[in-house]
């Protein structure tokens, strides 16, 4: 029944060790996000998550792949504090959380620039600083020149870039993505994957990225978690040593093919179970 707790990021920050019982070799760095046998049963009786148990360490980019309806969105909502679990524990070590939804969720009456400034505006960041940060974020997602456009004049891919920039303005430490590129065509999706990979290596946030595409999960993840449905549980947790920013040719490497087939195998296994 616990809401996510906000714990300090690390001992460097001068905070006491939140868990002195555990040895340093076991957990070299404090996780930014940690699920401890977390479960969630909705009042309707649907168990969306069961026995979710994993940590996300600083600098990791964890991708979660699973069939639709298996509880992926719920997992993110729990991590962000939008949803409260009913079993186990969830700890989040930062309050600076970025969240990119499946829909761009832009405000159609605001220009690109004013959409990107929105979160900073809500947080009360002074106008001059807000404008500077928005300009940086717009530059980072490659939308310079489109500041005065309105969302309805943009393509789906560009809207997602605006959505990404909007969260980047808040300089999140933990960045949650809920199938952000799921509605895009494959070419646009691959370009955005490349760009996200380079933004990740520039900004060094910690990522938790939901997708139903195996290729996307393997291409972006430093770790791929395979989920299976009803109730949502973790099937596999696979490390990918390849560094960021990813080389677009990584998609055609032998390693990529191997991990992809491994993930696909776990997915199929989870499905028949």
């Amino acid at each position, binding site marked *: 029944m616990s809401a996510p707790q906000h714990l300090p990021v690390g001992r460097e920050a001068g905070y006491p060790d939140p868990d002195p019982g555990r040895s340093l070799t076991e957990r070299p760095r404090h996780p930014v996000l940690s699920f401890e046998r977390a479960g969630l049963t909705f009042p309707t009786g649907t168990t969306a998550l069961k026995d979710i148990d994993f940590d996300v360490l600083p600098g990791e980019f964890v991708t979660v792949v699973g069939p639709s309806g298996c509880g992926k969105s719920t997992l993110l909502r729990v991590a962000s504090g939008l949803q409260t679990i009913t079993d186990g524990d969830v700890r989040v070590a930062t309050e600076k959380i970025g*969240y990119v939804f499946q829909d761009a969720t832009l405000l159609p*009456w605001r220009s690109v620039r004013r959409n990107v400034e*929105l979160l900073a505006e809500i947080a009360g960041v002074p106008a001059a600083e807000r404008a500077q940060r928005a300009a940086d974020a717009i530059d980072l997602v490659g939308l310079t020149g489109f500041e005065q456009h309105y969302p*309805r004049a943009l393509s789906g891919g560009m809207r997602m870039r605006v959505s990404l920039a909007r969260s980047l303005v808040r300089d999140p430490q933990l960045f949650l993505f809920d199938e952000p590129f799921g509605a895009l065509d494959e070419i646009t999706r691959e370009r955005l994957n490349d760009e996200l990979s380079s933004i990740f290596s520039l900004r060094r946030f910690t990522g938790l990225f939901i997708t139903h595409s195996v290729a996307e999960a393997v291409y972006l993840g430093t770790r791929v978690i395979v989920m299976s449905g009803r109730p949502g549980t973790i099937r596999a947790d696979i490390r990918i040593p390849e560094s960021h920013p990813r080389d677009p040719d990584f998609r055609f490497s032998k390693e990529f093919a191997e991990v992809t087939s491994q993930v696909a195998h776990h997915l199929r296994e989870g499905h028949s179970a």
Partner: protein
Amino acid sequence: MSASSSTRQTLLRRRRGRVNWVAPLLVLLIAIAIAYLVSYLVLEPSRQFLLPPPHQVIAVFFDPATLSDIAVGLSRTALVAALGLAAAIIIGMAWAIAMSQARWVEDSLFPYAVILQCIPILALVPLIGFWFGYDLPARIVVCVMISLFPIVSNTLFGLRSTDPGQRDLFLLEKSSRWGRLWRLELPAAMPAVFAGLRIAAGLTIVGAIVGDFFFSRGTPGLGSLISTYQSRLQSPQLFAAIIAASLFGVLVFFAFGWLGRRVVGHWYDF
């Protein structure tokens, strides 16, 4: 994305199609021809006042004395309607915002909005005169009562038209309730609010004219003028006053359409 932009294309095409003036003009000419036919051929000369020939009506607009009566009446009616609409906007939007902020407020107040809509306002007009006197305040109250509902219901609908993702965004950033109202709910409501305003503006003119029929104090509005002409069987003047009232209604309708496009046109096909 492509689907929504192609819908917009269709809408634009349809709007452009509406600027076709030839067909409606033709209908007008036919109506005028029928009016002449009825006036001269169907009606006996002694009963011609029931439908005067159109040129007699048009002549009224060139008669300075009558024209100035109509202009004064129209300006008075416009003033009453404008004050009534302004009051209805303030009351209606405050009412809707209050209902949008808490479920229990909506549960306790929405039934009255519906009842207000169901009351035949005309039945209340004599009572309103009784309570508020037979001058400007009573006229304004009639306007407010008749135009309030579309403002309340459209504003409430608009405030509720935000999507869950947008609300989550504000929750995540721990926005205050007022911040969310100001940055999300009110802007999202604007298209619906302007659609409601356009309806309300038309109704408020009805209210101003109806008020004249019942309340006799103060300078006469168009409604008083209309009942005077009717009782004196000044048929061309009566028709001219009715046409002036109608043109005013059309003007107001288009003015609010224009205003709506100015305010939300950059993001909504109003």
